[in-house]
């Protein structure tokens, strides 16, 4: 029997500090408690206790690019970032478009044992956008795939997308779309706008995202299916989501920390560490995304954690791969953009980083309330502490963070997965 006592924590940052007793993976008591024999004690000192974070959008690169991230290193990064569950995207090499690969990813996650790694299955065979992958087989495999996505690529063919949505309803799963009309983004390098005009980058227009999101919302409504929109980046997409939700469409959406904070002003550095897909947009887009997240029009935060090797980033912009690390900085960016600005309180943070992503990803044991009888997937956060970002010190093999050298607020001081401490004081617990 493992016993952990979290002493003096404030669940959701509310009320007086309480002690939270965790036995065998379950919260068994909350109040002013004595320290039981052989309990491991975490002195929380009034820090904020939240349900463990859930990331709907992580790239773990295994199988295929273990030089940039493995399921083990990515799991460590996730635990250090306060996560207890992550969804690993299907665009690995080979692609996770069959039961063998998704089960492999699932088992490797279990072996690492730091977070629950839920493989995302590809919607189409080989991410080619031509033929549906065996969604049912993957949904019923050992990995129990709950989310399907061709992320990195858009399911652009409207008929195929319709079929994917229709078919998904029988399985109770969600189709997560990387919304990018490929004909509108040929050669695209950066947000189409003033910065791209000045710097001579081929533009990635907002309408390439918005036209797909609008189309997919209509298709999802028609199919009565569940659609999840990945990494919303434009103000117009937020408007479309609001419109669709008001109509009763079963659509959910995520926004990345970087789209909440960073803008295309960063292009002027020419440093591909800022290159990401969809691209960084304008300040007015970021402002709208923050408001939409606060209002619930955008449901949750997802990292789009995308590790890359040095040679794939320290090159000229057009040759660089898009993507940036996100797992170990997400909480801090949310604190910076949403908490410090008064847009979200800690209950709101729990909603966007844990509860909603768990619901969208069909997880029943994560994103649960901090109450007696609930699974002890928990994250302890010091809201007042600050830290300096050093990519080289991350648990990820890669170091491509756009926040290098920045001082950020909010430190994850402990993470518990089913009552077991996975990370503590910035280190992976043995």
């Amino acid at each position, binding site marked *: 029997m493992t016993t952990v006592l979290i002493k003096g924590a404030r669940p959701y940052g509310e009320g007086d500090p309480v002690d939270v007793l965790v036995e065998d993976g379950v919260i068994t008591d909350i109040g002013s408690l004595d320290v039981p024999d052989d309990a491991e004690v975490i002195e929380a000192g009034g820090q904020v206790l939240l349900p463990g974070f859930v990331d709907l959008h992580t790239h773990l690169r295994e199988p295929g690019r273990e030089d940039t991230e493995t399921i083990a290193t990515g799991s460590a990064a996730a635990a250090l970032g306060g996560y207890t569950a992550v969804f690993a995207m299907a665009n690995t090499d080979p692609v996770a478009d069959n039961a063998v690969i998704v089960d492999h990813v699932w088992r490797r996650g279990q072996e690492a044992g730091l977070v629950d790694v839920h493989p995302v299955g590809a919607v189409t065979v080989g991410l080619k956008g031509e033929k549906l992958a065996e969604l049912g087989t993957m949904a019923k495999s050992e990995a129990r795939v709950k989310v399907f996505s061709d992320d990195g690529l858009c399911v652009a063919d409207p008929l195929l997308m319709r079929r994917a949505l229709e078919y998904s309803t029988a399985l109770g799963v969600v189709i997560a779309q990387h919304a990018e009309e490929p004909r509108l983004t040929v050669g695209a*390098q950066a947000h*189409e*706008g*003033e*910065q*791209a*005009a*000045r*710097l*001579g*980058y*081929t*533009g990635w*227009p907002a309408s390439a995202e918005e036209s797909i999101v609008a189309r997919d919302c209509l298709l999802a409504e028609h199919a009565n299916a569940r659609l999840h929109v990945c990494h919303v980046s434009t103000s117009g997409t937020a408007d479309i989501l609001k419109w669709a939700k008001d109509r009763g469409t079963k659509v959910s959406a995520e926004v990345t920390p970087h789209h909440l904070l960073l803008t295309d002003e960063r292009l002027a550095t*020419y440093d591909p560490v800022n290159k990401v897909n969809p691209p960084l947009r304008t300040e007015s887009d970021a402002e709208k995304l923050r408001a939409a997240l606060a209002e619930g029009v955008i449901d949750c935060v997802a990292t789009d954690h995308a590790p890359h090797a040095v*040679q794939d980033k*320290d*090159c*000229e*912009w*057009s*040759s660089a791969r898009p993507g940036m690390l996100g797992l170990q900085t997400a909480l801090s960016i949310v604190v910076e953009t949403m908490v410090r600005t008064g847009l979200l309180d800690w209950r709101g943070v729990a909603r966007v980083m844990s509860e909603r992503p768990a619901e969208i990803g069909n997880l029943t044991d994560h994103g649960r309330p901090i109450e007696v009888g609930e699974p002890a997937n928990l994250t302890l956060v010091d809201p007042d502490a600050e830290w300096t970002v050093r990519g080289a010190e991350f648990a990820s093999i890669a170091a491509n963070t756009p926040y290098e050298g920045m001082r950020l607020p909010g430190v994850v001081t402990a993470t518990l997965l089913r009552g077991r401490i996975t990370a503590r004081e910035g280190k992976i617990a043995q």
Partner: protein
Amino acid sequence: MKHLLATDGLDPAFATAVLDTAEELKHTLLGREVRKLPTLRGRTVITLFYENSTRTRVSFEIAGKWMSADVINVSASSSSVNKGESLRDTALTLAAAGADCVIIRHPASGAAQRLSGWLAEAGTAVVNAGDGTHEHPTQALLDAATLRERLGSFEGRRIGIVGDVLHSRVARSNIHLLSALGAEVVLVAPPTLLPAGVESLPVTVSHELDAELPALDAVMMLRVQAERMHGGFFPSAREYSIAYGLNERRMKLLPEHAVVLHPGPMLRGMEIASAVADSPASAITEQVRNGVHVRMAVLYHLLASEGAAA
């Protein structure tokens, strides 16, 4: 001043100094039998071209040689580039081999800027000879030299840039340089060949060439690449030529003193009528000639003045 990467943000005083030096050089070398100055003796200049451009490379090569620099041409076909070596590794190799200056032409926007970062420690100067659809600053400087020769000054002058602004590094560099020097810039193009966000640049925009011509002191025709014609940017070469080609009828709409420029190579007949290209208003051959003097001046300001200070 260590590099010449862009005209966006370029100090107008530096630009003017380059133009003045280019003019001096032109007069100094005029009629000389041996056009060689000792200024950059012992300096190594490398042209690193990832795209073919005989005209630009040769212009830089002659400029370097007339200043007595050792000029080495590296092109993508002969270098390790084809073997997959990264730009960064190539750059570090060149710096290690002792390059004082690297002149780079590259298909990626921002490549020259990245290169300057990698070469910062080596202290190697970088000249952008065209990066993607971003900038081509020496072309803008030679255009400015040609215009100054013909028009005297930039203050209050109105200059039209006509054609494929979207893909044109020449247009971007000219927009920033000419407006910094005091001229007004009018872009004339179909909406499909203008970048989104163009209104943030110091320009006015028009789709009617005829309406603009009478008020222009100079008209700069841009090259329309063949692939654009098939890329659906406009319906046909014929329609483009009718709307945006500089023909003899249009030429008559220009003021008497107006200058016609083209960065070359020209698509005669489509972008510009032969009679216009070969008319006295055309400064197209002077552009090429001034190109050498301007590039000499750039190398002088980046390399010689620094050497003098050291």
